[in-house]
């Protein structure tokens, strides 16, 4: 056990990957000498050399496209996209190539590529630096999509993502980068695609992931005062979703609120609400509600506190659910 920030937990996870698999590579803009703009790859180039930790041209399509080629050659690239809003120039290589190659090849080509993306808002940044693009990737068959909410998960999930043979979009909640937590350096507690009940409860279920897990936990704490006993589930894997814990929780509480930063329309909440409504129709005491970003472009930073789901909005949704 060790206490560390999420940045450090990712960094040590990446270090282990590089140590344990000589085919693993890190590539992206400024990941080498600078150690990445968030320092997630700090000192890795110094220790593993510039053949394994590669500062790339400023060209996102090129990053994913060449990572595909490197993977075809037997390498295992871990790419960094510098910020969420800069992943779109790579979209074709991500959704038409990386996601589909295995299927196109009839299963003969594996592309073990991890695409790390710092995502989400709350850091007071300018446009394009605070987006939550997960829906685009979850809707795309052939990709796996995961996100971590704490240092321990960050440390293990990045290693698990890199160990698999499928492409993984790995979303890192940048506003949690500096948050500290305990990391079990010996073993992983959960598989990459398992959801976790991070707070058991009985009144209603809060479903969150990445940056909103903390919001949900804080809401649950605050809810105690109002007499609520809220269960909080950290989704962890967005594609595939680990449905059973969600269903079990809903069968118990009868009520659920999904919390995410991405815009509400076709955000993860839509899929979760639609599926749970279908699977747990007779258990629902109230419709599955969504507390999400509004259906607008991410706003100027002085407005982001109004945009982002917060404790007040979550508890308000819980109240609305309980009114049913």
């Amino acid at each position, binding site marked *: 056990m060790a206490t560390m920030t999420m940045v450090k937990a990712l960094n040590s996870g990446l270090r282990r990957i590089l140590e344990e698999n000589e085919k693993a590579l890190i590539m992206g803009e400024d990941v080498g000498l600078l150690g990445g703009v968030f320092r997630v790859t700090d000192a890795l180039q110094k220790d593993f050399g510039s053949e394994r930790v590669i500062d790339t041209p400023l060209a996102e399509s090129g990053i994913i496209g060449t990572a595909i080629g490197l993977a075809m050659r037997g390498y295992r690239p871990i790419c960094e996209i510098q910020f969420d809003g800069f992943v779109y120039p790579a979209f074709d290589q991500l959704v038409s190539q990386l996601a589909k190659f295995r*299927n196109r090849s009839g299963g003969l080509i594996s592309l073990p590529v991890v695409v790390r993306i710092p995502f989400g808002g709350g850091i007071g940044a300018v446009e394009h630096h605070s987006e939550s693009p997960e829906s685009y990737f979850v809707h795309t068959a052939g990709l796996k999509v995961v996100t971590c909410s704490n240092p321990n998960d960050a440390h293990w999930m990045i290693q698990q993502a890199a160990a698999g043979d499928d492409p993984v979009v790995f979303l890192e909640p940048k506003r949690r980068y500096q948050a500290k937590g305990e990391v079990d350096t010996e073993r992983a507690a959960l598989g990459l695609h398992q959801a976790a009940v991070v707070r058991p409860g009985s009144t209603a279920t809060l479903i969150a992931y990445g940056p909103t897990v903390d919001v949900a936990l804080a809401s649950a704490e605050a809810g105690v005062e109002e007499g609520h006993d809220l269960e909080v589930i950290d989704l962890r894997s967005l594609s595939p979703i680990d449905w059973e814990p969600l269903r079990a929780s809903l069968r118990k509480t009868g009520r659920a609120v999904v919390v995410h930063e991405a815009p509400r329309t076709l955000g993860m909440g839509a899929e979760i609400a639609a599926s749970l409504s279908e699977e747990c129709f007779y258990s629902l005491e109230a419709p599955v509600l969504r507390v999400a970003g509004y259906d607008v472009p991410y706003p100027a930073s002085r407005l982001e506190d109004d945009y982002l789901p917060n404790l007040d909005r979550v508890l308000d949704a819980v109240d609305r659910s309980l009114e049913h």
Partner: protein
Amino acid sequence: MGSVDRPRPAKKTAKNRRKPASTNEPEFVQLLTPEGKRVDHPGYELSLTDEEYRGLYRDLVVIRELDAQGTALQRQGQLGLWPSLLGQEAAQAGSGRALREKDTVFPSYRELGVQWVRGLDIISAFSLFRGVDLGGRDTEADRFGIYSIVIASQTLHAAGYAMGVAKDGSVGEDGEAVVVYHGDGATAEGDFNEALIWAGVFNAPLVFFCQNNQYAISETNARQFRVPPHQRAEGFGLPGIRVDGNDVLACYAVTRSAADRARAGEGPSLIEAYTYRMQPHTTSDDATRYRDEAELDYWRARDPIVRYRSWLTESGLADEEFFASVDAEAERHVLDLRDRVMNLPEPEIADMFDSVYADLPAELRAERAEAVAFQASLDEGSEA
């Protein structure tokens, strides 16, 4: 489509007819004139064995016939689509034959000829266009990628692969070259230009082989660039060279040279093979809407097979008997191909799911089971 059919040996008058704007003869490396005269080009000496010279003729003819069979099979409803390479045989056979066994090729969707001369089973091109699969094959064993339909996307894959070759230290006399095929239209895409950057910055052992067949569907070169692709390369610090793409010997020579450079660790380069797509873009296209007979005649007079056959005959390397034997061999390949295409197994509903992930998620396993069961219930229903 009849009017743009396979070229016959050109009438003597044809080559003096109106030369369309899009076909101003450029400067390029040529070792064999359209009339079949062998010429020299400094830096591109070529001397093959008689057997190799004859082999190239066999390649050209077999490729043409196999490709024609693609068009025929499509017309007969056996394929959904066929993108013919008619007219581009020399570019493909010449470049493909110049490679070594360890070299790796990334094709676009029109490289049947390259696939053939690499000694590979070409059935995947037909299964793809028949719609029974997505063109998958053991690309690692073949050292030949899957056909790539999103224009220019494969150029980045090739650049990455070539970076990997360099990383593996597979350079030097016994090294590997990587060759990526793309069209003239592809040079306008961002991905192609990024591939030039990456190949250059990482000094990847990569050869860009651009078949400038004058068209991107209906659009001429003038819509894609101001100066031709071989000059583009130089803007990225890569040597660029233009070759007569209808001259199999020149294509061989420049590709060998570029691949040698790549293999030796001297870095990437680009070859622009100046050629012409004699058929419409694909069997779905109607080329009469955007080009005329005069232009086709101009190019018929530059047919890659006619000139090569003349030279072989003149130089005594081959005779009518040889040519007849090649025709017969091509015929056998065609019959064999036809047969295999018609007997390609139909896919099953489960195939849709099985290769999406290395380990199929539970939810998708359930979807798969449902789909299979539902299909079975319908089949039962209709049998009943």
